[in-house]
């Protein structure tokens, strides 16, 4: 029973860690706006945390520049299981306008399995919330799977 309770609280308390992999800061601002009184993602239990060790959902924005590549890889490795990766905006998926640049080593998929991808440049806060909620659902499933 305790295990089931833990499973179900997985999706109720997802803490977000945000990695900026060379983003233009547009998506970052939108992500913060999600937590403001207007959109209030906290009502689903979302919370921004400051360390990857405490994260459940890792939100990556930006097209993965050469500079941020290793930092991204290292930070992702430090997140405890189970966790979800959400790509924020078009950049991490496709490189967006930066595609083909010598400074870009994307897409994000190359480094980590992306669970949820929120498209847009920049995505709307509603879309971000929807994506995060989906990731939260995935967290519970992942844990259930891990228990089996």
């Amino acid at each position, binding site marked *: 029973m305790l295990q089931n309770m833990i499973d179900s609280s997985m999706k*109720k308390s997802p803490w977000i860690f945000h990695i900026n992999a060379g983003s233009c800061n547009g998506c970052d601002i939108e992500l913060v706006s999600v937590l403001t009184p207007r959109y209030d993602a*906290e009502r689903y239990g979302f919370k921004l945390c400051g*360390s990857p060790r*405490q994260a459940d959902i890792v939100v990556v924005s930006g097209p993965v520049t050469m500079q941020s590549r290793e930092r991204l890889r290292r930070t992702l490795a430090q997140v*405890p299981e189970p966790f979800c990766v959400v790509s924020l905006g078009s950049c991490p998926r496709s490189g967006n306008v930066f595609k083909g640049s010598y400074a870009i080593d994307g897409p994000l998929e190359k480094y980590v399995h992306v669970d949820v991808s929120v498209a847009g440049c920049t995505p709307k806060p509603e879309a971000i919330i929807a994506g995060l909620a989906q990731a939260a659902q995935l967290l519970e499933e992942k844990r259930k799977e891990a228990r089996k």
Partner: protein
Amino acid sequence: MTNVLLYAVHLFLFPGLLFIVVMGLLLAGIDRKLVARMQNRVGASILQPWYDFLKCCGKETIIPRHARKGLFLGAPVACFVILISAALFIPVFGGLSMSFEGDVVVILYLLTAAGVAIIVGSAASGSPFAGVGLSREMVAMISYELPFVLVLLAVGALCGQDSAYGVTFSMDEIVRWQTENGSSLLHPAMIPAAIAMLFVIPCEIGMHPFDIAEAETEISEGTLTEYSGAPLGVFKLCHCVKMYVMTALFCALFLGGLSTGILLVDALLEVVFCIIVTFLCMTVPHAICARFKVEQVFKFYWTFVSALALISLLLVWIMR
């Protein structure tokens, strides 16, 4: 046999472990909800701290390479245990506690020891962020300790004025005096001390405007940087329990002696007063203040808050 059973019930159920944890989680949840409502948000559910704790228990625990394993894992448990035993010395309305003579100093030191447990744990994690965090935690501790001590002395001097030594360090004594003479909050000399105590509480707990040690955006959660999984959950739980300990301490020091004699009513009263105190000293500053700087915290507590507590102490001295 019945004595042992009663003792076990006291220890683990009613004023003990279960009650304390439930109260702590409840207060934390209510605080979060109230902050959200004050910011015109819906906010997380009242059960959110409970979910957070459970979720943390379900996560993997990573022990960093630089960490000293035993201390790293032992610190959260030590912190929790110390806090629970501190809570047991604080009387619920009607004086239900494991109180003994001179327990006020013990409570003071147990709270310090709980802070030290956090410091030792974060030091053992070997992270430089935690290093910064622990130094801030320590500065916060130095900051609130002076006014806290003065408040305790003021209450002790007021409630112990009839005793042979002119002062008491016993929770039972403090509650008994208040039962006979009315709550100490009604005593005019105690009002500055009560205000000072209301400021001490959030800093002792590390609530928002004073959470310099766990500043998540500045220093990556500071003391908790390397913590993950169940130990993190226990630390979060400690945070909640601390909320109960401090608010209950406030109730015992300033609102004691309101007992009705009926256990259930007393427990309910306790809950209500704890929530009011939580609202006053934690929710309001949380909702309206941005985080203080380290040196600001220190200055604020050693000047303004200490002065308030000192005024109280001197008033008691003069008026008796």
